[in-house]
C-alpha cells in the first residue's frame, strides 16, 4: 500500500503529510531545547556568581562554527532550489557541501571538547560546564542526525528522484527544515553560552 499524501495535499490541512509531520516534530524539539534553556536560566539566576562564557570557552572557534553552520543552511536551501529547477547534479553538489560543512562543525567541536578535557574541565566541574556540555552535546547529536539523513538523500535515497521527483523534492525540503532548525538553535546557543 502506498503512503498517502506524500505529494498531493490533503484537503483538510492544505499540506502534504510529510510537511505537517516535520513541523510537529520541530514543535517537540522546541520544547526539548526550551526545557534546557529554562534550566539554564534557573541555574544561572540562582547562582551566587557565574563566569562569562568568553573567559572559559573559545569564542573565535565558536564564531567560525557559527559561520560554518549558517553557510550549511544556505547550501541546504540551494540544494532544494536545485531540485525545484530540475538540476539533480547541482543538488548533489550543494547537498554534499551541506554534509561537508556539518562534518567541519563536528570536527571543530571535537577539538573544542578535547581542549576542555585536556584542561581538566568536565561536565562535573561546575554548573556552567554542565549546562555547556549538555546543550552543545545535544545540539551536536542533532547535527549528526541531520548529516545522516542528508547523506541518505545524497546517496541511496536519491534513487527516488528517478521514479518520483516531486516526492523526493518534498523529502529534501523536510530534511532541510530540520537542518535549518539545528542552525536556528545554534544562533541562540552561541551568544547565550559563549558571549554572556
Amino acid at each position, binding site marked *: 500500500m502506498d503512503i498517502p499524501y506524500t505529494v498531493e495535499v490533503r484537503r483538510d490541512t492544505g499540506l502534504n503529510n510529510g510537511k505537517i509531520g516535520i513541523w510537529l516534530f520541530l514543535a517537540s524539539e522546541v520544547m526539548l531545547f526550551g526545557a534546557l534553556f529554562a534550566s539554564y536560566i534557573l541555574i544561572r539566576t540562582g547562582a551566587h556568581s557565574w563566569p562569562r562564557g568568553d573567559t572559559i570557552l573559545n569564542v573565535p572557534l565558536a564564531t567560525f562554527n557559527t559561520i560554518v553552520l549558517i553557510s550549511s543552511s544556505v547550501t541546504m536551501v540551494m540544494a532544494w*532550489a536545485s531540485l525545484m529547477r530540475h538540476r539533480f547534479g547541482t543538488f548533489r553538489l550543494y547537498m554534499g557541501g551541506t554534509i561537508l560543512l556539518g562534518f567541519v562543525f563536528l570536527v571543530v567541536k571535537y577539538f573544542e571538547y578535547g581542549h576542555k578535557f585536556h584542561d581538566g574541565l568536565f561536565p562535573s566541574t561546575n554548573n556552567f560546564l554542565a549546562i555547556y556540555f549538555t546543550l552543545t552535546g545535544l545540539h551536536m547529536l542533532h547535527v549528526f542526525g541531520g548529516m545522516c539523513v542528508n547523506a541518505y538523500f545524497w546517496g541511496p535515497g536519491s534513487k527516488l528522484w528517478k521514479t518520483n521527483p516531486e516526492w523526493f523534492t518534498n523529502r529534501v525540503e523536510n530534511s532541510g527544515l530540520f537542518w535549518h532548525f539545528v542552525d536556528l538553535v545554534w544562533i541562540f546557543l552561541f551568544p547565550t553560552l559563549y*558571549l554572556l
Partner: protein
Amino acid sequence: MTTDHAADIDRHVRVYITVFVALMVLTIVTVSIAEFHLPLPIAVTVALLVATIKGSLVACYFMHLISEKKLIYAVLLLTAAFFAALLALPVLTVHDGFWIR
C-alpha cells in the same frame, strides 16, 4: 519547468543570498558587541535581540515560514505559548514563596 516557475526560483535564490549576507553581518555584530563588555542586562537584551533577528531570517526565508499555510502557523503559535510558559517558570521562583512553597 515553465519560464515563470524558473524566474520564481531565481528570485528565491537571490533572497537566500541576501539573507546569507545579512546573517554574516549580524554574526559579526554579535561578536563585536560582546567586546564592549556591556552591563549584563543590556548585554543579554542586545544579544538576544540580534539572535532573534537572525533566527527570524532563518525561519522566514530558509524555512519558508513567510509564505506557509495557516495550520503551520497555528502549530507554531501553540508551541510559542508553551515555550514562553516554560521560560517563565524560573521567574516564578523569584517571587519567594508566593507561587512555589
